[in-house]
């Protein structure tokens, strides 16, 4: 048996160890906590600045206790004021953090007892130490925003343009850049835009777990991700389709601030949402005139450029159709264009722009694309009657003549001929004219007639009959 003495020694040693840890933890958690030190330091500073003995006495008698801001309708319990004690005390001007008063006069319009701290600054409001409140390398969805990103939070309750002169100039610049750079071309925001990229209505609420963090150097936070992703999309998300390399550092910063402000999915008490934001929402995120050119610049230009010439896009690895090419406009009609804009070209990078545009907008956009020439609503087919074609023959011709650019199996660089808008709304006449005359200004050359590739009428009929077999619906 274990000697009674050994047992007693074990009892003694383990009791002492347990006692030691219990004592140490009760001291470290309850007595030597950092916030108590800050409160004592604050009382000392306050006493130094006292103008009357009574003030001094009051300062020194300040109780050392936990302080918190509770805003029930926001679900907020912010203990930041436990250490940031001088937030609303002008006497503390000139002191270092955490005692300095809040910069600017923003607290006048946003009293902490009604807003709390974390609605603007983020971070873990429940924590009472700086490291944990900052919550960067912590299990917390919304870490403290660096100072220069805090103005993003104005956009939660305000129209960015309305607060431009009131401290949120970067935010409103970011909002303008977003419109001007044509981001809507791929990203839907406020109902307007394509669906090739992510929808951005609530991108500001995304947590680090919803973003690909593997290639992000350094601290893994959503705001760093946004900033670096703007500068190098493919470096952060390999194979991203996002257009690389166009924002400068300043632009990326402004865009990041704007992205962080996008929190449409967040439920806010009505009392917080500013009137300018209600007006803004009713205008559907539109900054300028809603004319055809503006719409074209925002939605189409990012891929189609000016649209008059067919340009090979190295990034997308293909020709982007020249939608304002005169030869194209001479063969097409508004119904076809509208079908392409609204429905997109499934199977290609062209996404549909169903949302965000009403009929009037669409009409203006079509007017702009049509330009000065006349593009009728529906082009009457005037082409001569062709003999019925043989699809088998047509397939052979297609493989010889067209597949080099149009075959999806061979690294296609030209428009997809099987897509629904073309098959359903593109008339035979348009297809025939395009084959016959080509599209000057693009890579599409003429295939018949003098100087053409030498297809005769019968062969063109075969080709057309083959192309019509590509219809997605018939498959």
């Amino acid at each position: 048996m274990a000697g009674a003495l050994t047992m007693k020694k074990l009892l003694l040693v383990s009791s002492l160890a347990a006692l030691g840890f219990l004592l140490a933890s009760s001291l470290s958690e309850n007595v030597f906590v950092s916030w108590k030190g800050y409160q004592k330091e604050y009382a000392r500073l306050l006493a130094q600045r006292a103008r009357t003995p009574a003030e001094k006495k009051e300062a020194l008698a300040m109780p050392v206790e936990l302080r918190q801001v509770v805003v029930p309708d926001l679900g907020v319990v912010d203990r930041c004021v436990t250490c940031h004690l001088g937030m609303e005390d002008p006497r503390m001007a000139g002191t270092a953090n955490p005692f300095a008063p809040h910069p600017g006069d923003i607290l006048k319009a946003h009293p902490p007892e009604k807003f709390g701290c974390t609605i603007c600054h983020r971070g873990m409001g429940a924590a009472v130490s700086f490291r944990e409140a900052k919550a960067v390398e912590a299990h917390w969805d919304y870490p403290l925003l660096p100072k220069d990103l805090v103005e993003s939070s104005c956009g939660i309750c305000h129209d960015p343009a309305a607060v431009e002169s009131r401290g949120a100039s970067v935010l409103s610049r970011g909002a303008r850049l977003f419109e001007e750079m044509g981001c809507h071309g791929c990203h839907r925001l406020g109902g307007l835009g394509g669906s090739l990229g992510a929808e951005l209505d609530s991108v500001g609420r995304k947590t680090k777990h919803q973003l690909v963090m593997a290639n992000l150097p350094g601290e893994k936070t959503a705001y760093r991700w946004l900033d670096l992703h703007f500068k190098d999309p493919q470096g952060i998300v390999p194979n991203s389709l996002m257009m690389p390399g166009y924002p400068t550092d300043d632009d990326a910063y402004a865009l990041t601030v704007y992205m962080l402000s996008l929190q449409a999915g967040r439920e806010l008490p009505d009392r917080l949402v500013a009137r300018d934001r209600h007006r803004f929402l009713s205008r559907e995120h539109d900054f300028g005139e809603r004319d055809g050119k503006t719409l074209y610049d925002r939605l189409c230009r990012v891929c189609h450029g000016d649209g008059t010439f067919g340009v090979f896009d190295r990034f997308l690895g293909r020709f982007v159709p020249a939608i304002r090419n005169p030869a194209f406009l001479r063969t097409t009609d508004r119904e076809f264009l509208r079908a392409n804009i609204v429905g997109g070209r499934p199977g290609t990078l062209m996404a549909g722009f169903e949302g965000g545009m009403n009929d009037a907008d669409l009409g203006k956009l079509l007017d702009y694309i049509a330009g000065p020439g006349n593009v009728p609503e529906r082009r009457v087919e005037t082409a001569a009657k062709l003999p019925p074609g043989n699809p088998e023959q047509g397939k052979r011709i297609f493989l010889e003549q067209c597949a080099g650019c149009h075959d999806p199996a061979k690294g296609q660089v030209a428009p997809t001929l099987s897509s629904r808008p073309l098959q359903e709304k593109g008339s035979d006449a348009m297809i025939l004219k395009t084959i016959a005359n080509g599209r000057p200004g693009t890579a599409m050359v003429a295939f018949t007639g003098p100087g053409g590739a030498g297809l005769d009428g019968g062969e063109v009929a075969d080709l057309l009959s083959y192309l019509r077999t590509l219809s997605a619906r018939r498959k």
Partner: protein
Amino acid sequence: MEAWKEYVAGVKAVPRSVWDSLVRHGAPVTDRSRMEAVFQNLFLHIHPTRVHRWSLRWSSTLGLGLICAASFVLLVATGVLLMFYYKPSTLLAYQSIQDIHFVVPSGRFIRNIHRWGAHLMVIAVIFHMARVFYTSSYKTPREMNWVFGLVLLVLTLGLSFSGYLLPWDQLAYWATTIGANIAQSPKELTDAAGVTRYFDPGGVQKTLLLGSRSVGEEALIRFYVLHVMVLPLLMLLFLGLHFWRIRKDGGLSRPEDADERLGPAGEEVLPVFTQAPKKSYGLMAVVRGTSPSVGRGPENTVPAWPHLMTAEAAVFMLTLSVTVALSWFFDAPLKEMANPLIPENPAKAPWYFLGLQEIVSFSAFAGGVLLPMITLLGLGLIPYLDREPGGVGHWLGKGERPKRVFLESAAFGLGAVIGIEAFAVRVGWLRNWVPEIPQIVITFLNPGTLLTFLYVAFSVHIIRRENSTRMGGIAIFTCFLAGFLVLTLIGTYFRGPNWGFYWSPSDWPVH
């Protein structure tokens, strides 16, 4: 006047007489009065008055059972403290844990003790079971106490798992979601039979557990009530039975030749009968059969007070000191608040279920129901299938043979589980070769069932070769431990997103 004097004397004597009526023995200063105290006191009576010197040897029990009980006491104490602040509601639970963590006086430390104590208890319970098995302590008359021990194992796991949900963080939410899906796994069988519409025990189980289709408010309340009320009460009940049985079964098991091996008692062991026995032993008439004490004097026993109690106090304080040390150095995890929209990948159950989750990755029914049932049934039947007498109280029994069988079984158990897992990871399993294979085939033919089959076959082989059920028992139990260990390690350290195999989390793919 006499009455008045008596009355005054009575008043003066009140403290004394109340004390005497409360404690009906003298001051516990002699062995005899201490034994009397143990005998007379409801709480101390959980001890025998005297305990055999063999039971106090380090190597007899390693104190494992006591560690389990000590952690349970710690968990109850810290759990009650946590209940004062915890709010079982999906809106408030996470915030209340944050409050406990940040502002409740010593709340962080108390929660840490509760968390690490729970893990410690699970580990101690498993080790305790292994100790009882390898010292043959489940043999007659202790069969039923082994079964009670298994019930306690299940209750321990249940308590730990039900507590897992309460912080309402991402870890809790997704681990519980996995647990609930495992509860639903009989659906795999009923689906295969095409009768789920009429007979859906899996769905019923999941609904019973969650009170809803997914983890939410109802599930949280259910887990809370189970965790703070139902399971602890059951635990107390079975702990009582477990301890009571130890007493009734003649104390802790010890070898038949314990007395000879201990040698003559040292000077600290005083003779038992320093005074003439005052009690009759009339009750002996109702005691059936032979008890382990029959035909033997109490010569090699020592009074439980102080010897056993010192040992108990030492083990308790040791458990406490280890737990508080862990709690000082490591904070209990608290991940982001539960968010049903952001699934954890990989979502992992608590560590002690990761061996099962490894099998669940092939078949939920096999890993979630079939194998645990087979394991529990097999463990429960051990004392009834191995009825060979002898070897009790020896680690692995006497002679070289059990040690050889143990090593052989450990090698086979480890080899089989590593081999099968390596095969499944490297080469793949049925689904990789025949994508359209019906799930029911995998339900019954997967690494888990194959492993079980191999283990059972191996132990049958050992029974026949060694002509001994005890050797077969050693084989199957050792194999089971090896399998549990390896599968748990793989599930814990080598499984990443989508349950893929990775040597290290740094190899996890970009999602």
